[in-house]
């Protein structure tokens, strides 16, 4: 992690500590304090990950058509597949764009490797 990012996190942590002063002071023991800060850190991790993934999904959705990995036919976006993945810091939620190729009769994730659903 570079110093600039560390500095920004420090500023954010200072602001958060000031805003949540009462809650943090209520955590009397070290165990309570650590549990609370870990919880905050986990929530930050989940929200940051979801935000980045949603942003990438929007970029993919922005492209009108995507090539089928099997036949190469340009297919339009079918829907956004909601996903909940178990991560290191809890569950990460995001929606992954999914396309359907009518020639191959299969769904695929644009830029993805495997079929999203079995051939019908």
């Amino acid at each position, binding site marked *: 992690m570079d110093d600039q990012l560390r500095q920004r996190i420090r500023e954010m942590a200072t602001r958060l500590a000031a805003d949540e002063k009462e809650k943090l002071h209520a955590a009397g023991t070290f165990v309570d304090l650590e549990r609370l800060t870990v919880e905050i850190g986990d929530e930050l991790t989940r929200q940051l990950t979801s935000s980045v993934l949603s942003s990438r999904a929007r970029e993919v959705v922005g492209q009108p058509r995507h090539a089928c990995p099997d036949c190469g036919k340009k297919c339009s976006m079918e829907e956004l597949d909601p996903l909940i993945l178990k991560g*290191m810091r809890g569950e*990460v939620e995001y929606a992954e764009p999914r396309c359907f190729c009518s020639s191959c009769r299969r769904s695929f*994730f*644009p*830029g*993805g*490797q*495997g079929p*999203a659903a079995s051939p019908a």
Partner: protein
Amino acid sequence: MAKALQRPPREGVTPLVLEKVGWAGANLGSYQQAVDALALLAEIPLAPKQVQRMTSQVGADAVEERTQQVQQHRRRPLMKRTTARPGVESSELAVVMMDGGRFQRRDHFQERRETPLTAIEQTLPPAAFEEQITPDICSLCEPCHGQSLLAERPPGVVSDTKTPAELGSGIDGVAVDQTG
């Protein structure tokens, strides 16, 4: 996106969690132990069946990857297969110990023999092979690549020695780690 993210397409976990599940499932005594360890140490709640399925899948993928790497390696030409990888320096000393008493090796030593042949040796045809008593000690450095350092020594030196360290210390200019 799944490919770009290297997200396992069939799993409901992230790649880092899958890595931990695979390790726990493979290294702990049972899938239940793996579940307990993951819950306590990594705070990842999973069912034993999930751990079993993911571990089996990770294991099968690893075996498939290994098989492909072996096949890829075997398809390469001999020169590329036997050349040391970039950045890897070959050792200057190799100690070969065999459980079998004697072995035959190509005789490369006639031309660099310093002492003149004895009268009996002059009557004999030059040997294509030299029978040697194991263990052997070889220098892998240029220019005597692969040639035995013990070949010109009397057999007693070989037969009396017990360990590679003793073998190495008996040869001038060959440093052997005595601690090993």
